[in-house]
């Protein structure tokens, strides 16, 4: 009778363990790629955005990987970004001018890539190999297993888009410093996808209603 009671207890514990381990809903599995993205904007609260009238957008994007400048890029994604930025700035009342015309605002685009590299090894896995796989199965009862040291590496990459508005109009008055007065940052899945460009820029402007002027 006692044995049967313990079996029942074990049965109940196993059921509990099963339920406990299988019943958590993973939030990441319930997000589309667009929903994984966050858009963060920040602005200089002392800036008067209506005092700027003209702007120019950089003709390509800077790639910055692990805090190192890797060069400029102009692909389909960057072209979409530039067009969308020009459209949104114009809708906000600013006038697009060429770089040589001395714009009040400069728009810079940066693609920020962070990579993390790590090492994994499964030493413990081989220590217990004969427990997982009885050598008897292969016709070698009593034998042990041996494996050279296995090690591997992994790399995780996260991407971010950053758009900066720079105050060129007051650069001299600001002590010969070009001041950043607005920043937009997008992070998440598919940030650098051409189909995401319009969504990202629209999100930046939609949450920055102060970013407007009248000509």
């Amino acid at each position, binding site marked *: 009778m006692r044995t049967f009671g313990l079996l029942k207890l074990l049965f109940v514990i196993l059921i509990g363990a099963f339920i*406990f381990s299988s019943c958590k809903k993973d939030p990441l599995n*319930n997000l589309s790629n667009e929903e994984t993205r966050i858009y*963060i904007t920040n602005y200089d609260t002392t800036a008067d955005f209506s005092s700027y009238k003209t702007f120019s957008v950089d003709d390509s994007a800077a790639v910055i990987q692990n805090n190192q400048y890797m060069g400029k890029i102009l692909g389909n994604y960057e072209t979409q970004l530039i067009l969308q930025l020009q459209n949104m700035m114009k809708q906000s009342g600013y006038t697009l001018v060429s770089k040589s015309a001395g714009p009040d605002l400069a728009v810079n685009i940066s693609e920020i890539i962070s990579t993390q590299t790590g090492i994994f090894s499964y030493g413990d896995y081989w220590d217990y190999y004969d427990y997982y796989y009885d050598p008897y199965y292969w016709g070698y009862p009593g034998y042990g297993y041996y494996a050279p040291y296995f090690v591997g590496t992994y790399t995780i990459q996260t991407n971010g888009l950053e758009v900066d508005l720079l105050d060129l109009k007051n650069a001299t008055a600001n002590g010969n410093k070009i001041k950043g007065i607005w920043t937009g940052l997008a*992070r998440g899945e598919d940030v650098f996808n051409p189909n995401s460009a319009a969504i990202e820029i629209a999100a930046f402007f939609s949450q920055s209603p102060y970013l407007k002027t009248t000509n």
Partner: protein
Amino acid sequence: MKSLSKYMLPAILIIATSYSATAQNAVEIGIGYNVGLPASSFKNDYISKPSFRGFAASLDYAFTSQWRAGISIGFNDYYQKYPRQVYNEGGGSAVSAVLSNSIQLLPVMAHVNYTLFDKGLVRPYAGLGAGANFIHFDQYLGEFDNPVSKVKFIVQGEAGVFIPLSSYSSTAIKIGAAYNFSPFNEFGTPNLNSWGLQAGIRFPLH
């Protein structure tokens, strides 16, 4: 999960009703399904949807046919996703994100339980419990989360009915409701109070 539970319930019933021994002075096990309903600031601040992913289990000693005391453990997984919204952080900063709240509550309590009648087809009961609430709180902004684990005090009041399955043993179906007072006092939220709706089975362990 669904297909497994199809076989699990009959299996539990077969084992539970296989005893013919009497109930008094026995150790009993209870296990059941638990639906969690957030209440108070838990509902207002984090999650308004019920949790259908939960269970409750207990190990009791029956001092008499009416009085029992023991320990219980429960689990509920709460989850809710909110549509994209702009959150103004102050100082010129704003964040636009789909917000997901994921909260797991695992209360471990000592409790006493009193059954009003020791005879009848339906036997009402009431109980009180107190213990520790193991809380895992994870708020996601998009895919970026900030997990926090806390252990807080919890008090539970419960009531319901037992429906005996046998004249000779304490094996019974349990249907009841519980209210969990669970102070939190983190992130501006005073509590994670909740209702629990339970359906399960109790059987003696010899």
